[in-house]
């Protein structure tokens, strides 16, 4: 249980979807922690020594011991604090495998192709990457149907591992809508995910940590300009 002797510190960056994922897990588990905002252009000694291999956020430091990689962090939080909140992973072995499969898919396919699309230089490349992204959305829509079994979340009645994993993308999904009028999960293409997003984002535990869309949109525009400038050099 957190409190008493437990010291939790999260090294993150406000716009990072991966850091958001860790924050969501901590929030849904009702765990308190110290938050350290990292400047990517000037990474702290603590970050560099805690994650020497990747030098990236998020890093969760529990009683001085660092845990790295957002999905590893979420599973750690679930396992080290079993009495906090609800279990994020289901108890049935097969259901656990299904949840892990889709969590891996979200990062390996959906997020990867979407990030690629946002960094593409030509319209043609961007269209190809978006096509892949929408194919991944389609698969995830089917996954939601399979996992939720008619209930509100991937985890069923309560938020689970896949919900938290996908929840990390909410900020940028909303930015896409704000900047380009295009919602990654929309009512015609992926109605279940569209409804899920609003439902998830309305939860108190999510609202407490989701970044401000306006601020994130400015950040996204700034990054795009940076990438475009780098591409023409």
């Amino acid at each position, binding site marked *: 249980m957190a409190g008493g002797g437990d010291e939790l510190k999260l090294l993150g960056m406000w716009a990072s979807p991966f850091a958001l994922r860790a924050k969501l897990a901590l929030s849904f588990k009702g765990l308190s922690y110290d938050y350290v905002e990292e400047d990517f252009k000037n990474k702290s000694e603590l970050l560099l020594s805690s994650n020497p*291999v990747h030098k990236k956020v998020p890093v969760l430091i529990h009683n001085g011991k660092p*845990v790295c990689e957002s999905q*590893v962090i979420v599973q750690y939080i679930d396992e080290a604090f079993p009495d906090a909140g609800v279990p994020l992973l289901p108890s049935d*072995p*097969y259901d*656990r*495998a299904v949840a892990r499969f889709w969590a891996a*898919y979200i990062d390996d396919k959906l997020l990867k192709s979407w990030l690629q699309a946002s960094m593409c230089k030509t319209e043609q490349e961007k269209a190809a990457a978006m096509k892949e992204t929408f194919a991944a959305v389609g698969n995830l829509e089917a996954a939601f149907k399979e996992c939720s079994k008619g209930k509100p979340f991937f985890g069923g009645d309560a938020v689970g591992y896949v919900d938290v994993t996908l929840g990390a993308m909410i900020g940028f999904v909303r930015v896409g809508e704000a900047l380009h009028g295009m919602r990654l999960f929309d009512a015609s293409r992926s109605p279940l995910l569209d409804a899920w997003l609003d439902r998830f984002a309305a939860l108190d535990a999510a609202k407490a940590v989701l970044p401000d869309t306006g601020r994130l949109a400015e950040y996204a525009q700034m990054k795009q300009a940076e990438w475009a400038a780098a591409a023409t050099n």
Partner: protein
Amino acid sequence: MAEEKELVLLDFWVSPFGQRCRIAMAEKGLEFEYREEDLGNKSDLLLRSNPVHRKIPVLLHAGRPVSESLVILQYLDDAFPGTPHLLPPANSGDADAAYARATARFWADYVDKKLYDCGSRLWRLKGEPQAAAGREMAEILRTLEAELGDREFFGGGGGGRLGFVDVALVPFTAWFYSYERCGGFSVEEVAPRLAAWARRCGRIDSVAKHLPSPEKVYDFVGVLKKKYGVE
């Protein structure tokens, strides 16, 4: 157990990801049916079982498919709790066990993210890009060796030997010879303790039985190079 006989692995002989699953089941003493897939002509069963990726390995347990090798390894731990575990069991609230699991997952993820990708570039590229990949691979092996430290195995395994990271990494030892030839370095020189670990693992039955010889892998790399027009 009747349940065991219903384990089927859809696989491809040289796949390190498939070998992870074979070795894990062997370590756990689980009988399974091995089915070789022709990747140029994938079976209906494979395509139905893994429609999203259409890749091997796929483990079928009583007909239900599990895909992605690291997901399969964790599934085997969860579904067969009476067998030697790969990850330290998550005893309720034991933070040390949770930390050991997190560390193991981190390093297995590292193998997937770094080693496999760099290895592919090693045989696909030529000239300076290939040399650069060689240097990168040497660095990756040094990093893994640093994590191994003075230990015999990466640990956490219930049998006192192969744990999650050992099983995730050991299939790639069959590719070390190919990496050396393509990358112009020697694993023994760059990471002698890792090389010793590889030899140590090679003496374990489950590993010896399920890994191809380095020469066979190198022949396969030659086939790949021809196929992709890399000479």
